[in-house]
């Protein structure tokens, strides 16, 4: 835990060519021309930013680094700072119509796509969410509320975990009597979601940051696809 260290020799082991390449990849994104016009350092984004309230985090510094194309500094920010963003997009208030939050989204995607160490670290403990969404089609589920994962949410987590089955059955909407998914989802729906992820390269992204997780998802889903008669689907 420390102040935001913007000194760049911290990552001198990474070549400038590599840093340039990563930034070029971000810049090539189709969204890029609408996320950054120019920054005149008014600070409106920082004041609106929840992360800046506690972390030494600054959407303005990120916008500035990107505007100056300081790939060395951008790499430093990608290695840590960008993962502090809350993605609330309060910074969209920018009078220049920049979107530091969107810049960060793109930089995060590049980090993930290139399997950067920082991305892997940032996503540690996040695998179960990806696992959940891929296998069930809903992102969180009632059975995730377990005391070992959420002791800080207090006594009622114990109570929910204990009464989960009955309490779910005591929900009037028919689609909510589930514990492993947030609502009843058709098998075909889940498979369609999986196909979308495959066709759009998301599965490749996952393999880049968490190969173990990738293998599990593919194993399970290939079987389901086969059962559902999708064996001749090509993913291109």
């Amino acid at each position, binding site marked *: 835990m420390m102040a935001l260290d913007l000194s760049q020799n911290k990552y001198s082991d990474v070549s400038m060519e590599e840093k340039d390449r990563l930034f070029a990849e971000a810049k090539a994104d189709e969204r890029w021309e609408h996320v950054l016009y120019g920054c005149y350092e*008014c600070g409106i984004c*920082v*004041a609106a930013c929840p992360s800046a309230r506690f972390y030494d985090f600054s959407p303005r510094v990120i916008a500035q680094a990107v505007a100056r194309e300081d790939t060395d500094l951008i790499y430093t920010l990608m290695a840590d700072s960008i993962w502090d963003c809350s993605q609330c997009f309060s910074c969209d*208030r920018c*009078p220049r119509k920049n979107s530091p939050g969107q810049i960060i989204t793109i930089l995060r995607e590049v980090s993930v796509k290139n399997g950067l160490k920082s991305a892997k670290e940032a996503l540690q403990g996040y695998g179960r969410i990806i696992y959940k969404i891929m296998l069930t089609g809903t992102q969180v589920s009632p059975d995730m509320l377990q005391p070992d994962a959420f002791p800080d949410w207090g006594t009622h987590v114990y109570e929910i975990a204990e009464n989960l089955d009955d309490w779910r059955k005591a929900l009037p909407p028919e689609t909510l009597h589930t514990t492993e998914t947030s609502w009843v989802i058709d098998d075909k729906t889940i498979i369609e979601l999986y196909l979308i992820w495959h066709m759009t390269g998301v599965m490749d992204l996952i393999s880049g940051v968490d190969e173990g997780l990738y293998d599990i998802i593919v194993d399970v889903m290939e079987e389901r696809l086969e059962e559902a008669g999708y064996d001749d689907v090509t993913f291109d």
Partner: protein
Amino acid sequence: MASENIIVIGGGPAGLEAARGVADLGYKAILVEKRDRLGGTPDEAQYAALTPDMRSAKEAMDEMRDAVTDNSGVELMLNTTVTGSEGELGNFVVKAEQGGKQIDIEAGAVILATGFQHFDPGRETQKYGYYEHDDVITLVDAEKMFTAGNFVRPSNGEKPKSVAFIQCVGSRDRQIGNEYCSKVCCGISSKQAIEVRHHCPDAKIYIFYIDMRMYGYWENEIYWPAQEKHKVNYIKGMATEILKQGDHLIVKGEDTTLRRPMEVPMDMVILAVGMEPSVGTKEMAEVFGVNKNKYGFIETIGGALNTVSTNVEGVFAAGACTGPADLEDSVSAAGSAVMKSIGAIRKAAVPA
């Protein structure tokens, strides 16, 4: 028969100077003003002191008014609204309405001096709460208070102990669509900060800004004295939003030089609202077929070398109807418009 009269539309500083100039050169000026009195925005918005010399705005406007009211070369038409125009350079017939009557005014050339209006802070996107909080006011409101000699918190009538100016409200903002700098607000805020100091000797006064844009002598005549003599605190960093907390307003922004968010309680906040084209400017552009730029100001076509000619031959524009301008700009442009319009009439009168 060609007319050598020049119709000047708008009775603010640019229009007054143009009418006087036309008369001084021995031509006849017809000065048309929609309101029942001359003086334009400085008069209507009750400006107190001019920037940067702190001269009384009323006194200055009186001087300009006097120069046209008893001037045989100027025909004054108050309460008159221009509704249409026909003809061309040398032979304009301008249609107007005066007290429910339609009238035609013949003129050889037209000078538009229809000015600007202040930005409505309800349209800002940064949530400054002008329509929510009594103690959030604009530069215009502050001027009125200075003119009335009573600078107090609108919420309770007490003198403020802390006052913040927020720059660039309605200017330099792509979200609002006003990407331009309104040019005068940094100077006016600094001038008003000095006036606040006179009214409230012990108050803390802050100006939150992106850049202080003090052109030419405004730097040494306004900004430096405000800071060095009158102890105004200039903080680089804009306010993002203003909310109430108890009896105070909280100004939230980033102090960019310290790289930290700030949330500072203030008794009063003054929004440095920028300039937009007035309704009259937009209407007259339609009436005369003059091009507007993307912001609705009248577009002049001569670049830096000719700031008054428009795309319509014989129609000229001066002052803040062509974009943000201070008094010096407006008066100078009026002089230029007088010269160009008379030149155009004379050239048109000589057969080719």
